[in-house]
Structure formats: structure tokens, C-alpha cells
């Protein structure tokens, strides 16, 4: 059976060139970058080359890039590191209610260290309002952490305005950019960002590698002590193959971005156009324009998302849902709740995230598969239009 992967916000396949860039560092070039000999040198060169490539993707300086194990660690380092280092200045943090758990749970943990956190609401399209950020700012605010684009609904936040505000008020500004790095242009300078988290496996790189951009001059402390790697910011022997992979992935993403994001946008619009026109009782969650080119988040009335996923899986389509029934905690998606969806409407949600391998043919096949699955489940549903 044909299998079509449409869950690229969860993870992406490794690009063949990325794998190629990684392989030597598992075998022949296995040196420890901290070693002074030639083995260490070649590993160190790979790490520094990758650092330059990641910096280029974000319009940062190589010296502002710190390698981590992934998006979650980058978020932990940015938020805990900035909060703890600046606690004498203040103890208030502003974030949004639709952040990834890697931000929300870190903020929650910091409240146990005496920090206070404001979780900003969002509009029904999933936008954080700059006015609301401004209102939340107080004397004690030391950090604003707002994601670039949401992983579930794809809404892109007005970072530039938030960044400007943060600079005016002299508050550090962190952004979880896991869903945008490599997909849409990111310029940490023009966006006014102090710290930006990225993850390799969301941009056709390997799992277990990520990076944090920290603007030069930001007061931050390490959260992992040891041998002082990454200029003391992140101890632990570098994951050289992973870092080489992240560097290659960043380079390829930058080269292909303009063309690929246009292609994604066209596939996305083709799909939403067809689905919304042909399936009654369906709508798109998130923002109509301020949206990742690869993201679709539908809701279908009278059916439940896990059932829909399983039917689609049987037809070879891999997607995801915000339905409570598919989550470990049996709770509806916090993002869908925050944009005002009732639990019933979150139940029928379907997230499609497109990627490099998807073609027009795949999209058309997926549209039919969604149509058929929704129809079948509605036929057996105990809910229907009254």
C-alpha cells in the first residue's frame, strides 16, 4: 500500500544529503572536538562549520549559536538560563497560552522557584495581541517567551512588534522557532530576538540535535554543568554527527526555502480549498494568512479525531489530531481550547502538515481519503445535524 506522510510538524525524514554529511562522524572522524590532536580537530571543524550554517539560516553570528540536544533543551536553557541569571532584576515572565509544553512546563517549573508567569490568551485565529503583551509588562518582567509559529494550528505570531516592545522595555525576548526555522525566513536581528530555539529533526535533520541562538550580550546562565563545552553554556561532549546533520539541514533549508515554501503554500491551499468545498460541516482552525505554508488544521463535525486518524492510517495517510481521545491525558488540545474551540469541536480536529516528499497527487489522494473516512464515520455517528 502507498504510504503518504503528512505529519511533518511531528518530525521529518532525514534528507539524503544530511545523512551523507553525518556518516563520516560516526566512523572515520570520531574524534572528540575538545581533543587537541588531528582527530579532535576534524570533529571540531565539523562543529564550527555547522555553527556557521545555522547562524546563516537565522542571520546570526556563529558565536551566538549553541548546540543542544533539541528544541526542548533549547527552550529549557533559554528560559531557565535567562530567568535564573536575571532574578535579581525581576521575577516575572510573560508567555502565551498556546506555547509548546517545552515552554509551558518550564515556566510552570519556574513558578516553584519563585517566578511569576503570565499566560497570555490568543485570538480565535491563534494570534497573541501585542497590546496584551504590553499590558502584561510590569516593573518585574524579565523575559517574554512567545513562539514563532504554533505547532498545531500554524499561526505565525507578530514577532517583530513584540520584539520592538521588548527592546523598548529592556526585557529579554525568547522565541521557540522549532516550527519555523528552515521553513520561513527568520532574521533574529530584524525581529529583535534575544534567544531562538531550533530543532534539527523538524527540518530534515536528525533527532537529538538542536540549537539555541543567544544574542551576544544577553545575561544567561548554564543549566547543565560539567566540562564547560559550548563556551560553558552547555556541558557535555558534542553530538558531532547530529551537529553536522543540523548544519547540513540548515544549509539545504536555506537554499530551498523560497521555492519550497511556495510549493507548500500551493499544496496547502489546494487541499484546504477542496476539503472545505466538498465536506460539509468542516472548517480550518488557525489564521487564514498568517499561517505556516505547510500547516492545515481542520475540524469536522460529528466525528472524533482518533477514529479519523486510524481510518486515514488504514488508507496510508499519516496525520495527527488534537482530540482528547488520542492524548495520553485524555484532555483536549490546549491550543484548540485557547482559540475557543469547544471540547466537541476539538474532538473532530485533524492536523495535516505537509513536507518535502508530498506532491499534488498525494494531496489529491489524501483529500479523497479524508472525504471517504469522514463520510464513513459520520454514517455510524450518534451525532448529527439536528
Amino acid at each position, binding site marked *: 500500500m502507498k504510504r503518504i506522510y503528512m505529519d511533518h510538524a511531528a518530525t521529518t525524514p532525514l534528507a539524503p544529503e544530511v545523512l551523507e554529511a553525518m556518516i563520516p562522524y560516526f566512523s572515520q572522524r570520531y574524534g572528540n572536538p575538545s581533543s587537541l590532536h588531528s582527530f579532535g580537530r576534524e570533529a571540531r571543524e565539523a562543529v564550527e562549520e555547522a555553527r556557521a550554517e545555522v547562524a546563516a539560516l537565522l542571520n546570526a553570528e556563529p558565536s551566538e549559536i549553541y548546540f543542544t540536544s533539541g528544541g526542548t533543551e533549547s527552550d529549557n536553557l533559554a528560559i531557565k538560563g535567562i530567568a535564573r541569571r536575571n532574578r535579581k532584576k525581576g521575577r516575572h515572565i510573560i508567555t502565551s497560552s498556546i506555547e509548546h509544553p517545552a515552554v509551558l512546563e518550564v515556566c510552570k517549573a519556574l513558578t516553584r522557584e519563585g517566578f511569576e508567569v503570565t499566560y497570555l490568551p490568543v485570538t480565535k485565529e491563534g494570534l497573541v495581541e501585542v497590546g496584551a503583551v504590553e499590558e502584561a509588562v510590569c516593573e518585574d518582567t524579565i523575559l517574554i517567551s512567545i513562539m514563532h509559529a504554533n505547532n498545531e494550528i500554524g499561526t505565525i505570531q507578530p514577532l517583530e512588534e513584540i520584539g520592538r516592545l521588548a527592546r523598548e522595555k529592556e526585557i529579554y525576548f525568547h522565541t521557540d522557532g522549532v516550527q519555523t526555522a528552515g521553513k520561513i525566513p527568520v532574521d533574529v536581528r530584524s525581529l529583535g530576538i534575544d534567544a531562538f530555539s531550533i530543532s534539527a529533526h523538524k527540518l530534515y535533520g536528525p533527532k537529538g540535535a538542536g540549537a539555541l541562538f543567544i544574542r551576544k550580550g544577553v545575561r544567561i546562565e548554564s543549566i547543565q554543568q560539567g566540562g564547560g563545552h559550548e563556551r560553558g553554556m552547555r556541558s557535555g561532549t558534542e553530538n558531532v554527527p547530529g551537529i553536522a546533520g543540523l548544519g547540513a539541514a540548515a544549509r539545504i533549508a536555506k537554499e530551498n526555502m523560497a521555492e519550497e515554501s511556495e510549493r507548500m503554500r500551493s499544496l496547502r491551499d489546494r487541499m484546504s480549498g477542496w476539503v472545505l468545498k466538498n465536506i460539509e460541516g468542516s472548517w480550518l482552525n488557525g489564521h487564514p494568512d498568517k499561517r505556516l505554508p505547510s500547516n492545515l488544521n481542520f475540524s469536522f463535525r*460529528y*466525528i*472524533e479525531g*482518533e*477514529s479519523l486518524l*486510524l*481510518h486515514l492510517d*488504514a488508507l496510508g495517510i499519516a496525520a495527527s489530531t488534537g*482530540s*482528547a*481521545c*488520542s492524548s*495520553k491525558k*485524555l484532555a483536549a488540545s490546549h491550543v484548540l481550547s485557547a482559540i475557543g474551540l*469547544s*471540547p*466537541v469541536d476539538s*474532538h473532530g480536529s485533524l492536523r495535516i502538515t505537509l513536507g518535502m516528499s508530498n506532491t499534488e497527487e498525494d494531496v489529491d489522494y489524501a483529500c479523497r481519503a479524508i472525504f471517504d473516512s469522514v463520510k464513513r464515520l459520520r*454514517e*455510524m*455517528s*450518534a*451525532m448529527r445535524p439536528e
Partner: protein
Amino acid sequence: MSQQEYNEKVMDHFMNPRNVGMIEDPDGYGKVGNPTCGDVMEIFIRVKDDKIEDIKFRTFGCGAAIATSSMTTEMAVGKTVEEGMKITREDVAGELGGLPPNKMHCSNLAADALHMALEDYRRKIADKKT
């Protein structure tokens, strides 16, 4: 995530549910669940000579909700009203070879819908007699 995975039998009942639909003017009807929790089940029965002659269901819910509904109807058909009342949620889960633990409670309500349909039937019979 093994705790969220369904076994083959559950998947079979989910993908190919038995007795889907409704019965016009049923002898008994039961509906349980609430859409906020994510599962709503309806059971329709036709009873002849005290036996469940025909049974149909409609379910809004996850894989487990649909599979347990299907299995419940399969277990109930041909049984007497009394026997039908004795089918428990645990029996249904057992007959399916088990459910993921987090689905045992919320999505395994079909037996309740069956009991409600059987009670509805009994009430109708009692009403007719009086």
C-alpha cells in the same frame, strides 16, 4: 506508546464494525455518553419471544468506543433480555482481548447503552400490560 495501541481484534471491530445503523421504531432504545467527553453511543433493539432478535448501534467516538459498540451488539444478539442485562463492560473488553488502560473507563460504555435499551424495552412491555 504501547498503552495507546489497539490489538488486532479491536482494530477489526473498529474498521469493520458489526451492526452499524438504526432500527426504525425499535422495541428498545438506549443512549449514553456525552459529546464533551468524546463518546456518545446509541443502541436500538428488536426483541422477539424475549430474545434480542436484531440490534444496531451508532457511535460518535474514538476507536475503542466504536469497537466496544460493535462487540456489544455481537455479544447481545440472540441473547434473552435477562442475559443481555448481564453483559458487563468488562465482558466486552475481555471479549475484545483487552483495551488500552486509559480507554477502559471513558470509551467502554456500550454495555450501559445496551442495558438502557433493554430497560426501555421492559418499560414498554410493562406499559402495554397496564
